């Protein structure tokens, strides 16, 4: 694979992605790409298909078709656990903290998928609340702490493509600020990030590009440079 040596090679390229839950056809040909080190957002109203897009990339929906190309590998037919080992970290919308595991067990649960992950000590330094509560039951944490745990546990695995689903949802402004700082730090470290976000003010300063999803399709792609002139149209699309 000669293309793998191109520095700007897409970390992820999704084309003509269709996905179903049972008989319901949810995604209708999603197209977007993220290059290594970029942060992009998926925007859209409730029920547009943002979560489904992330889940379809990981093979967590029902039937799907089209192409999901990860670091030059076509993974549309791969089982979910193999996809993770290409360096993908997933932070689900409902956070997915395990109640039967302690904070620390949650933190070290996901297997290493690449070298170069952060150590538990580094993560505790980054999220001091987690260090204090390491022995607590995972779901005894506050909403904000659970969100930090959900982020921290995928940073330990060495994953360098992060799929983050509405990480600011329902959190206090200070915690949103904290997560913004974390994402900024991750960007400078070269992580590739796909951010599903309702909080556009949070996402805008961080993102290289925005994709707007409507009814299971990408209807608009707006780069950071185009953003000021497209702001009104975007607000209309999102209904904010």
């Amino acid at each position, binding site marked *: 694979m000669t293309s793998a040596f191109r520095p700007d090679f897409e970390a992820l390229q999704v084309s003509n992605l269709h996905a179903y839950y049972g008989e319901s056809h949810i995604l209708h040909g999603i197209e977007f790409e993220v290059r290594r080190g970029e942060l992009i957002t998926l925007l859209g109203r409730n029920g547009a298909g943002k979560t489904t897009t992330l889940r379809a990339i*990981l093979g*967590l929906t029902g039937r799907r078709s089209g192409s999901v190309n990860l670091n030059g590998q076509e993974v549309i037919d791969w*089982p*979910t*656990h*193999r996809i*993770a*080992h290409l360096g993908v970290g*997933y932070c*689900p919308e409902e956070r*997915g903290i*395990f*109640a*039967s*595991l302690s904070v620390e*067990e949650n933190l*070290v*649960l*996901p*297997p290493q*998928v690449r070298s170069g992950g952060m150590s538990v000590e580094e993560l505790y330094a980054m999220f001091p609340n987690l260090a204090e509560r390491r022995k607590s039951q995972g779901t005894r944490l506050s909403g904000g702490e659970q969100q930090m745990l959900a982020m921290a546990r*995928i940073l330990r*695995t060495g994953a360098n493509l992060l799929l983050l689903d509405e990480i600011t949802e329902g959190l206090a402004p200070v915690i949103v600020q904290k997560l913004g700082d974390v994402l900024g730090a991750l960007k400078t470290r070269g992580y590739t990030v796909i951010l599903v976000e309702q909080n556009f003010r949070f996402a805008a300063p961080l993102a290289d590009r925005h994709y707007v999803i409507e009814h299971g399709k990408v209807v608009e792609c707006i780069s950071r440079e185009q953003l000021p002139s497209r702001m009104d149209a975007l607000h209309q699309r999102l209904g904010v």
Partner: protein
Amino acid sequence: MDFLNIPLPAILAQLVVGLINGSFYALLSLGLAIIFGLLNIINFAHGAQYMLGAFVAWFGVQYLGVNYWAALILVPLTVGAFGMLLERTLLSRLYREDHLYGLLLTFGLALIIEGVFVQLYGVSGKPYATPESLRGALNLGFMFLPKYRAWVIVASLVVCLGSWLIIERTKLGAYLRAGTENSQLLQAFGVNVPLMITLTYGFGVALAAFAGVLAAPIFQVSPKMGSDLIIVVFAVVVIGGMGSILGSIVTGLGLGLVEGLTKVIWPQASGTVIFVIMAIVLLIRPAGLFGKEK
């Protein structure tokens, strides 16, 4: 000292007998709980797999010269491997379907396995000799406890508590707990969940087979031994609540004791007391004593 005019030694003796029965309930309901937790399947073949354990041990002595101690290791491995084969070829096709299909399939498998053994060996029991070193009895003061029965209690306690410790304290156990809660997310983290499911089913079946080997010298080896016992075990599981590991162990032992006590206090009720408790628990706490309310 007497209680309800029943001599204390008689009570203690029945409690010990209850503890022996409880050991089997605990081993079997533990396996059922582990399987149900991860696979969401009520393994109706559990009784047949317990019977297979006893029969394979008997084959071992009859045809291969495998002694009891070797059987205690080899039989669970063999029957567990057979369980994994069932999981890969049959059960795995049903995970996307309603739970009812898994129940029907394992129930059907139980009928087939038992039917084949009744055909081949009839319904009468085959004796299995108690190992040399466990013959004789211990004098407990209030009763003579056959050494072999004492060993059954110890062995099943060790295996149950060992399994519980592995599940609660190790990384492997953390995978099992996480997979029980949300197997999709665990797989999204890169854990080979399909493989884990196969191994977990194999482990649950191996526990049943282990109980079968333990039972062989006590109850004789017969095709129906599983179906008789498993009905009580399902009641135990309902009382304890599906999916709680420690709950299944504690409930199994506890109900064995209750059954033993009933035998001295009101012998006629000893066969039904567990079902009466089950009915009461279902009325008051439908999710079971240790189960989580949905």
